[in-house]
Structures are given as structure tokens and as C-alpha cells.
């Protein structure tokens, strides 16, 4: 990372352009980016492009597997599955991104404080994180959610907070290692201020691990939220969140497997895209890790 700044200078190429250039070379990552962009756009435009309302019931057209009017079929109440998936993507994707945002803010703050100050502060914060990490993440998220009650916002908070310790540890350890690098020493030696060292050297060089983890974290958050809806916490019916649709379709899945096939596929595609982007970012941000 440090080298990039140096080598990129004579080429008059910004750091961002350099990263984008490397990211572009990873075909799978670009596909992931395109797919997730389409999904986000579809989610934004969902009310306009969805052929039916998400709670529009039609009792004369229940359990249709496929028809030109309902390409992905209808459920037990005759609701169009494609429309529900499109509207549901708004909820699922929002949870994914916002939950990671919450996790990053909390985790990043704790990790940064622990990393910068070190000593007793670091010890105390890390012990707390050890305690939280002794509880498997999904159980922790479910405990938070059962404390706060179900619902969209509470699910985001629960999934976000449960992921925070991860980010705290990653940021802390990269700050600790960056702090000891020669270029920080060099910056100190030429008389750079603490502020400049922190903003220009430590933060940019510590972030790459965090960015990669965050992009993959979105996928994990989508799965966590779906799991929680699946066991009845999280998003409540009739809201068409993907996990909630899976949970709902479970009653009928032995005979009408398509009711759970599509929501699961949507989750899978979204998560896969985020993982591909994460892989691409890892290679782009830190070429030394490239294998």
C-alpha cells in the first residue's frame, strides 16, 4: 500500500484510479459489482417495476408454479412472488448495508481507540471484545433482537452490533501494525504533525482490511438477517423480506418448492456478488496479498 503512493506519483495516476484499474482486471469482481448494482437499482425502482403489489392477494390464482402473468409463480394467497421478491430486496439489501454501517461505526470506533491509545484502554476494550466473541455471532444477534423486539430497525441494530467486534479487531490490528511501519517513523522524522500522520498515513493504510471485510460483511449481514426472520425474529410478515419469505414458504415447501427456491436464490446471488466484490477489493487494495 505504501509503495503504491510512491509508484503512482510519477505516473500521475491517483490512488483511487490505481485501485480501480486493478479491480477492473478481476472479471468476477466486476460481474459481482454489475449484479449488485442491478439489484440495488431494481430495489430502488421496485414499486415502479414490480408487476403487482407485494400484498396484492388473488384467491383465484394461488400456488401457480409458472405462468406468463406470474413468471416466478404465486404463493398460497395468490401473491405474485416476483413482485414480493423485488419489494423484499429493498428490505434485505437495506439491512445488509445499514447493518454493516452500524457495525463499522461502533467496531471502527472501538478498534481505533484501542489501537491508537494502547495500554490499559486497549486491554479493557479487547477483554470486552473477547467476551462478546465467546458468544457465536448469530446467537449474539438473536439475543439482541429478542431484547429489542422484532422489526426492521431492531434487526439492523442486532446484526450490526453483533458484527462490530470483528471490525474492531481488524482495525485495531492493522493500526497496530501500521503504527510500527518505517514510513510512519519517516513521517515523524521529517516533522509531520500527529494529525497529518494519523489522517495521511495511518488511516489510509489501515482501512484496506476493513473495506474488504465490510464488503463481505454485507453478504453475511444479509444471511444473518434472513436467518433471524427464518426463526421468527427479525422482519415480520406480511413484509416481504427474503428470509421472511423463506420462513413463510416453509409451511408449503414439500409440495411447492419454488416458494422457497426463489427467495433463497436471491439471497445467494446478492451474497455471492458481495463476496466477489470483496475478493476483488482485496486484490485491488493490497496487491501483495494477490495469489
Amino acid at each position: 500500500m505504501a509503495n503504491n503512493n510512491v509508484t503512482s506519483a510519477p505516473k500521475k495516476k491517483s490512488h483511487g484510479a490505481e485501485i480501480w484499474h486493478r479491480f477492473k482486471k478481476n472479471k468476477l469482481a466486476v460481474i459481482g459489482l454489475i449484479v449488485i448494482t442491478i439489484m440495488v437499482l431494481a430495489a430502488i425502482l421496485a414499486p415502479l417495476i414490480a408487476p403487482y403489489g407485494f400484498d396484492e392477494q388473488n384467491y383465484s390464482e394461488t400456488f401457480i408454479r409458472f405462468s406468463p402473468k406470474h413468471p416466478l409463480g404465486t404463493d398460497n394467497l395468490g401473491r405474485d412472488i416476483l413482485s414480493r421478491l423485488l419489494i423484499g430486496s429493498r428490505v434485505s439489501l437495506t439491512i445488509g448495508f445499514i447493518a454493516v454501517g452500524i457495525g463499522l461505526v461502533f467496531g471502527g470506533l472501538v478498534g481505533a481507540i484501542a489501537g491508537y491509545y494502547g495500554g490499559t484502554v486497549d486491554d479493557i476494550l479487547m477483554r470486552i471484545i473477547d467476551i462478546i466473541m465467546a458468544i457465536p455471532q448469530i446467537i449474539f444477534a438473536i439475543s439482541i433482537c429478542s431484547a429489542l423486539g422484532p422489526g426492521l430497525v431492531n434487526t439492523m441494530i442486532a446484526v450490526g452490533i453483533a458484527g462490530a467486534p470483528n471490525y474492531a479487531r481488524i482495525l485495531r490490528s492493522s493500526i497496530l501494525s501500521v503504527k510500527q511501519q518505517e514510513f510512519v517513523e519517516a513521517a515523524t522524522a521529517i516533522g509531520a504533525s500527529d494529525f497529518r500522520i494519523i489522517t495521511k498515513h495511518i488511516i489510509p493504510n489501515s482501512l484496506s482490511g476493513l473495506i474488504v471485510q465490510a464488503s463481505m460483511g454485507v453478504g453475511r449481514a444479509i444471511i444473518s438477517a434472513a436467518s433471524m426472520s427464518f426463526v421468527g425474529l427479525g422482519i415480520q410478515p406480511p413484509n416481504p423480506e427474503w428470509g421472511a419469505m423463506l420462513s413463510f414458504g416453509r409451511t408449503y415447501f414439500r409440495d411447492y418448492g419454488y416458494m422457497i427456491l426463489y427467495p433463497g436464490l436471491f439471497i445467494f446471488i446478492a451474497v455471492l456478488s458481495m463476496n466477489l466484490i470483496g475478493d476483488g477489493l482485496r486484490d485491488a487494495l493490497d496487491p501483495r496479498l494477490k495469489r
Partner: protein
Amino acid sequence: MLKYIGKRILMMIPVMLGVVLIIFFMLSLSPGDPAVQILGPEATPEQYAELTEQLGLNDPFLVRYFNYVVGICKGDLGTSYSTKQPVINEIIARFPTTILLSALSCVVGAVIGIIFGIISAVKQYSFIDNLTRVFALIGMSVPSFWLGLMFIILFSVKLHWLPSSGFYGPKYWILPSVTIGLVQASNVARQTRSAMLDVVRQDYIRTARAKGQTEMKIIFEHELPNALIPIVTVLGMQFGRGLGGSIISEQVFAIPGIGMLMTNAIGNLDYPVVQGGVLIIALTFSIVNLVIDILYAFIDPRIKSLYAGKKKKVEKAADVKNTEAKAEEEGKNDGK
């Protein structure tokens, strides 16, 4: 070594106290009222008040916490609100099921993951390597409960090969453990591949090859042992994940384990059972982590020498510690 293990076991006590504190705190924020849940809507206010007092729900938070911790020391995790049975009995009855499921899944994950990870690294960029990488990506992205449902449709409903629910014997174990195991295998394969790739370019491998060692011996005597630390790390984490994921997977396959117990308890606001469940899972997870740490010493003699009691050179110690920490960190980043 024994001293180190003893120290680590002692260190688990404050962590568990912390776990209990966090869970206790969160459940005390919970909006539901257990007394209402137990008595139903038709009870008189006096009955509610009496039961609330009886359950100790009027006591201050710290008093309840203290009483609970004292109870734990006596092996008492409280009484279930809904079944009126001691929580510890309910947990003991279901614990073996959950552990068996987690262990079986982990074995499936380890065997498939390590085999494919090794082939993938040894034959980098080959067909199998590409296949493994695609498989790993898919495994990391697929929600395991959905995969479970799909397998049920395929293997139970359509093909009638395997039972879809329950946990009564080996036949019932296959579907759940393979489902969870496959997802875990993707992480293990990824980690194994990257750890092996680190090793295969080392000088001592070239030396071994130069002196005419067979490829099999090179892989299993030189490469794998040196790549084992991150692999074992990721295995430990996968076990923990399987344990936590039991709360979901036991729902899918209707397995009467701790996860099922906890999901029902959450629905019934049966706090003592939720607390007991989280505590037992956290405790098991911590013990697994401890075992992993001890395994490090057997895998890497340099780490063992650190704990042997002899004062080695500080420099070397620091060096090994660093590589260990780095391996662990990498394992965590990749494995999650």
C-alpha cells in the same frame, strides 16, 4: 504446558462471567413480561404481582445477577418458566444432540475442505483448483438453512433416500451434518488452499524435492504440517459457527437440541433457558478455542517451547508469537 492450560482455564472464568452479564443485561431490556406469559391474560393483577415477586423479577439487576452467578457455582441455572424443570436438566438432555451435530458437521467440513484445499494448492490453476474455488465461493454465499431445505426437497421429498427431520440415528444425521459440513468445507478449503500455497514455495520444499522425496511424502510430511496452524484455526471457528448456527439448523431439520430449546424459549420469554443456552454454547465454544490453542503447541514445536517453562530467547518468542497471531488473524478474516 500444564501451567499454561491451567492459566487459560482460569481466564475463562471472567469471560464467562462477562457473557452472563451481557446476556443478563440484554434480557433485562426485553420488552415482554414473563409473568404475563406464564399466567396468560386471564390472571388477576395480584397473581401477576405474586409471581413476579416469586421469580425474583423485582430485585435490582445486580442482585439478580449475583444470585444467578452463585447458582451457577452450585450447578443451578435456574428453573424454566414454561416447563418448571431445572434449566440444567433441560440442557443436559439436549446437549449431546447439539454437540454430535456440530462435531459431525465439522468432520465433514474438515475432510472435504482439507482434501480439496490440498489438491487445489498442489495443482494450482488446474481444473480441480478452479472447481474448488468456485465451490468455496458458492459455499460461502449460500444460506445454510436454505441449502438444508433444498436438500430436504431433493433427498427426502423427491428421492426418498433420507429422513428429513428428527435425530434418532445415523440415517437421520446425514442430511443435517452434510448440509452444514458443506458450507464449512468451503471455508476450510479456502483457508487450506491459501495456507498450503504459502508453504509450497518454501525452500525446504524445494530441498525435499531435490533429494528425491516422493510427492506424497512432500505433501503430507513437509507441506501439510507446516500449513496446519491456520487450518486448525479455521476449523475451530467453523465448529463455533456450527454451534451457533444450531439455533437455525435445528429448526430446519427439527432436531431437538440446544438450538431448538433456545428458539422455543425466546418465543416463550423463558429467560432462564435462554441464558442457560447461551452460557453453555459460549462455554463450549471457549473450550474448543482452548483445545485449538493447545493443539498449536503440538503442531508447532516452536510454540511448545514457549510454554515449556524454559526461558527461550525473547526475540524468538516474539517472532513466533507474531506469526501465530498473524496466522490466527488471517484465519479469522478469511474464515468468517
